[in-house]
């Protein structure tokens, strides 16, 4: 998890708007989509520039051929084939056109379309990310609630400190520790052990293969989820409307559950959405440690083989997922929070 990904989760200032027809909702969604267009253009330009000649890495033909010496004729053929003699903007337009048509180019090494390769790997990454999100939701929310409700107690200190440890833990190291303990050592000691690599084998059901990679991938995010849950609930518990609820005669538990959770959960739910997208990119390390045949491991392998179309194609797919998730989160935010649903949010 990158640092400070949660910039999106804020209430912003809300202006009143009493016209509560569904039109506002549609307008809101339309505005969000419009706001995505410059981001989309920016992202594609960056990725396009990165694979263009003269920028980083230099010559794209060299990127293809690597260290091998090639004849000038072959070189020129390649330039022509990839349209590298065209002006910059034509190349960009071609690139965009290909993207829109789902054409991510051809893998250098596997002589298969990149889109096809990634399409094969995508369900594996999705499965891993879903398992991780599930772990994160259960443990993050429970730990956060305990920590907030029993503030300053032993449990609060424990949760706060262990979340600090988790965010400081290199995920790949955690993965290796799990492999040693539950995979190798448990096997050595004759205990039931877990598989340390791959996502299926004859010896284990698939779900058992999922356990350690999912825990590893979820570790940092769970810590963040717990922290957000805790701070949101604490903030909500200090609100006047909680006192109003208590003044109605609701019990402490009911006040927190009925009145607190709905308010506190709004940012937490949106966090899960954003984090799910972030996980798509964050799987490189976890998948590499566990040889999990997903998009992340594919990227790692492709970098080693200098198979740039795969790297770029996977990146752009992940970025699209992130952007789509942002949009979904914004829209669900509007459904969850009536202040945004009926009002105009001012940045």
């Amino acid at each position, binding site marked *: *998890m*990158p*640092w*400070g*990904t*949660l*910039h999106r*989760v*804020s209430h912003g200032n809300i202006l009143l708007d009493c016209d509560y027809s569904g039109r506002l909702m549609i307008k809101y969604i339309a505005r969000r989509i419009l706001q995505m267009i*410059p*981001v989309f253009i*920016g*992202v594609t330009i960056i990725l396009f520039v*990165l694979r263009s000649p003269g920028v*980083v*890495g230099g010559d794209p033909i060299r990127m293809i051929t690597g260290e091998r010496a090639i004849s000038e004729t072959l070189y020129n053929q390649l330039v022509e084939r990839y349209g590298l003699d065209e002006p910059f903007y034509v190349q960009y337009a071609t690139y965009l056109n290909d993207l829109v048509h789902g054409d991510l180019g051809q893998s250098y090494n596997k002589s298969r379309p990149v889109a096809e390769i990634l399409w094969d790997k995508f369900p594996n990454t999705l499965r891993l990310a879903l398992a991780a999100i599930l772990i994160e939701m259960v443990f993050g929310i429970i730990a956060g609630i305990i920590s907030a409700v029993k*503030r*300053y107690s032993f449990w609060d200190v424990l949760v706060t*400190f262990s979340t*600090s*440890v988790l*965010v*400081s833990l*290199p995920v*790949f*190291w955690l993965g*290796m*520790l799990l*492999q*040693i303990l539950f995979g*190798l050592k448990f096997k050595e000691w004759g205990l039931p052990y877990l598989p340390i690599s791959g996502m299926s084998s004859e010896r284990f059901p698939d779900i058992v293969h999922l356990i350690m990679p999912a825990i590893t991938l979820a570790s940092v995010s769970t810590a*963040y989820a717990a*922290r957000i849950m805790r701070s949101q609930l*604490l903030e909500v*518990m*200090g*609100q*006047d409307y*909680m006192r109003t609820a*208590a003044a109605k005669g609701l019990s*402490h538990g009911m*006040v*927190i559950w009925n009145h607190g959770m709905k308010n506190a959960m709004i940012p937490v739910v949106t966090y899960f959405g954003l984090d799910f*997208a972030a996980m*798509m*990119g*964050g799987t*490189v*390390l976890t998948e590499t440690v566990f040889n999990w045949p997903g998009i992340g491991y594919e*990227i*790692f392998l492709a*970098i*080693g083989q200098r198979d740039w179309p795969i*790297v*770029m194609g996977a*990146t752009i797919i*992940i*970025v699209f997922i*992130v*952007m789509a998730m942002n949009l979904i989160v914004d829209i669900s935010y509007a459904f969850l929070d009536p202040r945004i649903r009926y009002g105009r949010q001012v940045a």
Partner: protein
Amino acid sequence: MRKKQPTGEQVAPVSGDATGAAAVASTEVLTGPARSLRADAIRRLKKNKLAVAGLVWIIIVILVAITADLWAPYWLGDPVAIDSTTAAERMLLSPSVDHPFGTDKLGRDVASRVVYGARVSLLVGVVAVAIAVAIGLLMGALAAYYGGIWDAIIMRTADVFFAFPYILFAIVLIALLGPGLQNVFIAIGVLGWPSIARVFRSSILSVKENEYVDAARAMGSSTRRILLRHIMPNAVAPIIVYATMSIGGAILTEAALSFLGMGVQPPDPSWGNMLDDARSFMLTAPWLMIYPGIAILTTVLAFVLLGDGLRDALDVKMKE
């Protein structure tokens, strides 16, 4: 609510109880004169035992890294060079008095490599974050100061960066730039600025809205003076907190990149590439991965705890 207001007005014991009666108590109690903001912050930081422990550990790591040349090669052994005559008998020795953290597959002392790895990690943390802060402050200030089209361009650019999952973008950048420490600096620095710019921009904007800035403007202070005298001191606190935490993040990123073989290249030691080496000997020589991992964990944790402590002490509100 645990944090005190800088004015020193709020002393009430506020537990986060649902009834919120605490808020009443806090407004109903007045205490003595306000202490100076900085002294107050230092006093509060000192009270936070975890933050102090973090700071102490950071200082120890810095001292170890700076003085490494003076003792590590003599006490522990050369971190890089391989003595081919004795390498065979010194391979993969488990921890002992001679080699407190054991030796690696080429007979080098792991402790010595961990010590030299601290240099890399701290260097990456400080340099990369310095780059990110420099770009971020400039961009954030430009966006907040000029507003309008500049604001839009800069913040949309930041949005573009945010659309990339951080570690993935770092990996792709390094893949294209080529491996090596320098490119790690660049990647982390370039990827870090949007967060800093956002934090700085929003704190400038929020300070700008404060009444005392209006008052200063009404009294005819120049814009630059207002920016320097009134806005900067208030906007700096979140940056300090953010930068401290980012150093921890940068160390983790470097470790991840080196682990993937994209950061510091062997034979030079870095905690990340040591862990990469250790993968092949997970069962036979677990010390190879234990010590570099602990080094990363404790150092990053120290920065995180210090950052948390600074946040509380400076009363910075941050979204986690």
